[in-house]
């Protein structure tokens, strides 16, 4: 149990997939302009991550590995992720058309969110069990959520009228991501001695 908690905290904070490993920056910057879209985006990403992680884990251990087809894994995993995203998109469109419009292109783009492929590849590379893979995926999703919620609130606070013209909008947002990554860098090493 303790090691599962450690995996969760490590994926969410110490090795945050966005701010420490720099994966998934595109939806991170793209959907953080409005605070309202961040929580739905996090839930969608976390759902895709969890389903895709479990599916790719089973696919790898019961189909690819027994037949020596590991070299096909990136293609196979992307197909699995795309299917998960399609399913999520259909669900969001039916459940909340407004939310579907707010998330726009970024919802289908979860397919190409490298954090999702990154998590499933890391889980397979490290030979994590099914339970650990699921916890890693949930932790990565939670870490994405922590980062994007904080980032959206920071972006709201930045007063664009006061910012020098060339830096308004995305440029200063990227400077802000840099400082956020700096803050998370301070957590480096925590939990490393405990066999994560």
């Amino acid at each position, binding site marked *: 149990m303790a090691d599962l908690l450690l995996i969760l905290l490590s994926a969410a904070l110490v090795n945050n997939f966005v701010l420490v490993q720099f994966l998934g920056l595109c939806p991170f910057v793209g959907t953080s302009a409005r*605070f309202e879209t961040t929580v739905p985006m996090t839930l969608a990403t976390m759902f895709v991550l969890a389903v895709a992680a479990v599916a790719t884990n089973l696919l790898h251990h019961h189909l690819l590995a027994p037949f020596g087809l590991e070299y096909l894994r990136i293609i196979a995993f992307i197909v699995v992720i795309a299917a998960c995203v399609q399913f999520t998109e259909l669900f969001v469109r039916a459940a909340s058309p407004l939310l579907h419009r707010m998330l726009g292109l970024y919802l289908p783009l979860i397919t190409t969110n490298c954090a999702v492929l990154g998590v499933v590849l890391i889980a397979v590379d490290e030979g994590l069990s099914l339970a650990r893979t699921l916890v890693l995926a949930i932790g990565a999703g939670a870490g994405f959520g922590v980062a994007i*919620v*904080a980032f959206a*609130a*920071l972006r*709201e*606070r*930045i*007063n664009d*009228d*006061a*910012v*020098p013209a060339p*830096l308004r909008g995305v440029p*200063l947002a990227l*400077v*802000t991501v840099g*400082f*956020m990554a*700096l*803050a*998370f*860098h*301070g*957590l*480096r*090493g*925590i*939990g*490393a*001695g405990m066999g994560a």
Partner: protein
Amino acid sequence: MINWFAKPTETPVIMDRVLIALALPVAVSAWVFGPMALAHCAVALAAGAGFESVCRFARNRTPWPFADRSVPVTCLLIALAMPPSAPLWLSVVAVGIGVVLAKELYGGLGRNVFNPAMAGYAAVLAAYPQALAHTDATTGATALDALRFRGAMTIDEASGGPAFGVLGGAGFEWVNAAALAGGVYLLLVRVVHWRLPLAVLVGLGLPAAIFHDAGSSASLGSPVFHWFAGASMLAAFFIATDPVTAPRAAGHQWLFGLGVGALVFAIRAAGSHPDGVAFAVLLGNLATPVLDRLRAARSGQAP
């Protein structure tokens, strides 16, 4: 006749009092660590004046620096946090990142989202770990390093070493005591409310007390040690109390202070950086807009 105990509201007045409060730690630092500590302060102030002038000039304002006195406060905080044995150009880099990137780019005073001093100091901590390594021939390892790399020694054995003083780290304990005295002055002149400093010190002391473990070889240091080591007192009274980057609601201030204190302890005890103050404050700053947003949502106003 000036009423020195009236609650000040204008930024230059507040910052003048913060500068008065910082004079004591600067003097003690110079007395304990020698001229290098003063040189860091002077270089940091000069760099701060230069960077602020250039930024003001670039934005078509009067290029006269230090008008609101917030930049010299940032410079002195960076210089005090810097180990005196570090090269002087590190102070210049830290001030540049803190004043230009973390403050002026966001529109200047009151518009920054991160504490400028800690943003600049954290950046050089991350970028130049070698230049900042606390061990060198003249000062030896600091207490925070000695505590972590002491092997199987107990606290009492290790704290007999040259890196330890009466209360905390050798030398640093006196700077911390001076910062505490300056902080008490700020409380008296009502520049700072007692809530945030107390929350930071409790947040740092509580986990230290829980893990103190009666001074065994696994102990991570007593609360008193942590309060008087590194930049603890500066963080509690001068950095966490920054009105721009700390949350506004009282409950959220408790949460912020306790969180920053606990993060300082966690990074010192388990992280790979010698002192966690800068990173803990930045992580706290990250939470501030979310907390202020919650407050605005609760009271039904626009954020």
